[in-house]
Structure formats: structure tokens, C-alpha cells
């Protein structure tokens, strides 16, 4: 009895260490989803004012953007047809958030019924949050960037040098950007954005600023500490990004890989 149950739970644990195996045990199910939803309905009232302020600030930022686009010359860019159709945004509310473990997940109140699917990117009004890793009918869980399994492509804002965004579990508001080539012009305070090299996030979503960096004498890569724009301990509203072209890109890349083998 003990043996069977113990091995079973260890098995479940090992399963969760790989991202793409679908999980049976996830808070995106009906019972826990509903309990978390009720809880967040109650506790959300305590943060309403701050949340309003955040949304207002975002509105202002977007308004400025719209204005600046209006002033642009009305010549449409060559690929203007492609831009609006590629990415679709959905919104959701965070109903459970972890940041103190080494593998943190966030639960949100939208699921497959709201056309949320695994592998969609998740951002907040301030920056990157994570990637959807399991969905049920009405809820979904997000693998937070504060998860040792998370690896997201990111780059310096003012050059095209990129690296992988990982987390060393120490501070919930500081993540690490590793494998940045030595040639890159790294300066403390510079902005880091998503690289757009994956099919999940569009290019240029804000992540954070460089807090400090180190490089070994004979190494070819920088390790950067990134101070996040997001306060990962205080998330309420998030946006999901769906890339309509993801499938096309993945099929194409797979064809090449298959052809090379």
C-alpha cells in the first residue's frame, strides 16, 4: 500500500519536471479552480485602487502610442497587412499566484472555453509573466518566469544580441539573462525585451532593466541580473497572446529539421 502510493506520487513529481507532458494534477480543474475563483473574488477588493491606477497608467501609455502613430506619415508600411492579423490578445484575472517556491505556477480564470490554449504567452500591463502550461474548460495555469523550468528568449532593447531568461530562485523580482555574447554592448540600466525568436511572444515585450552583470575572464558569454518591471508578487490582470502563425512557423521548421536528418 505504502509502496504503491509512494511510487505513484514520485512518478507524478517526475512528470511535472518536464513541461510538455500534460498534467493530471493541476489547479486548473473544476474544484480547485472554483475555490480559487471565490477566494480571489473576495480578496481582490483589497487591491482595487492600486489595480485601477495600474490600468490607468497603461491606458495613458497606450493613448500616447496611438497619438504618436497618428502623427506618422500615412504611407502604409509594406507589410502592414501582416501585422494586425498575426497576434491576438485575451485578458484574464489571476486567481492564484505563487512566487516563493522554486517552480511557481499562476492560475487564471480563463480556460479552453475562452480559446486559451497551451503554449500561449502571458504578459501583464508592465511586462512578461509566463507561458500557459495547462488548461481546463474554465481555468488555466501559467508557468511563471519564476520557475526553474522556464527558459524564454530575450534580447537587449538597443541591439539584437539575445540570451535565455532563467531564474535562480533567489529573489522574486530579479531574473537572470544568460548566454549573452561577449560582443554585446551591456550597460547597467539598459532595458531587456523579448526577442521574438520563439513562436510564443512577439518581439519587444518589456521584461526589465539590467541590475548588474558578470563575465568570467575567458568566457564568451555574459550573465546578467535583470530587475523586472513587473512586481511578480502582485499580479491581478494579465493578457494572453496567441500567435496565429505559430503553427505555420513550427511546421516549416520541422520540415527543415526532418529534411536534414
Amino acid at each position: 500500500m505504502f509502496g504503491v502510493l509512494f511510487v505513484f506520487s514520485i512518478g507524478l513529481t517526475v512528470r511535472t519536471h518536464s513541461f510538455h507532458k500534460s498534467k493530471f494534477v493541476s489547479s486548473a480543474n473544476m474544484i480547485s479552480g472554483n475555490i480559487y475563483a471565490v477566494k480571489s473574488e473576495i480578496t481582490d477588493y483589497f487591491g482595487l485602487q492600486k489595480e485601477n491606477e495600474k490600468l490607468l497608467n497603461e491606458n495613458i501609455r497606450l493613448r500616447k502610442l496611438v497619438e504618436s502613430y497618428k502623427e506618422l506619415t500615412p504611407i502604409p508600411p509594406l507589410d502592414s497587412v501582416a501585422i494586425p492579423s498575426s497576434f491576438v490578445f485575451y485578458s484574464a484575472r489571476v486567481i492564484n499566484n505563487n512566487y516563493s517556491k522554486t517552480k511557481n505556477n499562476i492560475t487564471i480564470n480563463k480556460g479552453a472555453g475562452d480559446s486559451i490554449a497551451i503554449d500561449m504567452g502571458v504578459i501583464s500591463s508592465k511586462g512578461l509573466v509566463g507561458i500557459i502550461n495547462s488548461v481546463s474548460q474554465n481555468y488555466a495555469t501559467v508557468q511563471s518566469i519564476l520557475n526553474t523550468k522556464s527558459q524564454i528568449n530575450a534580447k537587449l532593447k538597443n541591439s539584437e544580441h539575445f540570451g535565455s531568461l532563467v531564474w535562480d530562485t533567489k529573489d522574486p523580482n530579479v531574473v537572470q539573462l544568460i548566454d549573452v555574447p561577449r560582443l554585446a554592448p551591456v550597460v547597467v540600466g539598459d532595458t531587456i525585451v523579448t526577442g521574438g525568436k520563439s513562436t510564443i511572444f512577439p518581439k519587444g515585450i518589456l521584461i526589465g532593466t539590467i541590475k548588474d552583470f558578470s563575465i568570467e575572464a575567458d568566457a564568451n558569454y555574459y550573465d546578467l541580473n535583470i530587475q523586472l518591471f513587473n512586481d511578480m508578487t502582485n499580479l491581478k490582470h494579465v493578457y494572453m497572446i496567441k500567435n496565429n502563425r505559430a503553427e505555420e512557423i513550427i511546421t516549416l521548421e520541422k520540415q527543415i529539421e526532418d529534411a536534414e536528418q
Partner: protein
Amino acid sequence: MQNSDILITILRFITLVLLQVLILNHINFMGFVNPYVYVLFILIFPLNGNKSLLIFLSFLLGITIDIFSDSGGVHAAASVFIAFIRPYILKFAFGVSYEYNMVKLNKVPFTERMTYIVVLVLVHHFLLFSLEIFSLSHILLILKSTLFSGIFSTVVILCLLLLFSRKSS
């Protein structure tokens, strides 16, 4: 078990799960210290109760916590393990009197009760964090989390025991 005992056990199960996932999982004292108080269920399960039943209930308890905190099977594994070793720890902590079924948790000397709680909590936490972090290079983090969370859990468990212990008649 009497009917009322069964009812109390079920109520205790649900209360501890809700307490754990809705409140205690979000304390994050000093950034990472959370008490895992649901082990109380295993600690105060009737000492002469059915052992297989306890192991099964512990599994159920652990997997419920896992579902809520998206942690795979780590709580289930740790809970099942301490449910399994509980008889040995009982013998270790209370000595001979346990073998004669004489132990009542709220009547034993404080030191013996303390040993029992601390040993089980530490074993549970150590297993929990080892499985969750799952890497030898973070052994210090595992030990640190075990120690701090262990102290926190023990304190909360002792408080709960004091609050809800029935007056000895």
C-alpha cells in the same frame, strides 16, 4: 471508529486543506517561509487507528494540496512517507507506553510530544523540499527551507493543538 469520529476526521481534513491552500500557502514570511500545517491531520490521527487507512488518507490529503499548489506529487509523497513511518516515530518518542496503547496526545509530557511533532515535521519538510527542488546543487536551499519552514510549522501546530485540545476530564 465511531460515527462521530469519522465525521470529525472528514471535517478536519477539509478544514486543514482550505486553511493550507487559501491562507498558509500565501504567508511567504521573509520571502520563502511557509508553514505546512496540514501534517497535523497525520499527527493527530487516532494513534490506534487503522494504518492502511491512514496511509490512504494521507495520500488523499497530499494529492489535494498538490492539486491546489500545482506541485505534481511532492506533498502526496511526503505525506504518505510520514504516515508510513509514524508508528516507528511513535515508538521512538513515547517508548513503551505506546506499545500498551496508553498514549493520549494531550496527556503525555511536553518533551515527548514535542519530539514526536518535530521529528515528523522535519522528515516531512525535508522530503517535500528535496522533491520540489530536485537538485543536489541546491542542497543548502533545501536544508534552509526545511529548517525555517519546520520551525514555523511546529509553532503553528503547537498553537492549534493548544487551541483545540479538549479539556482533560
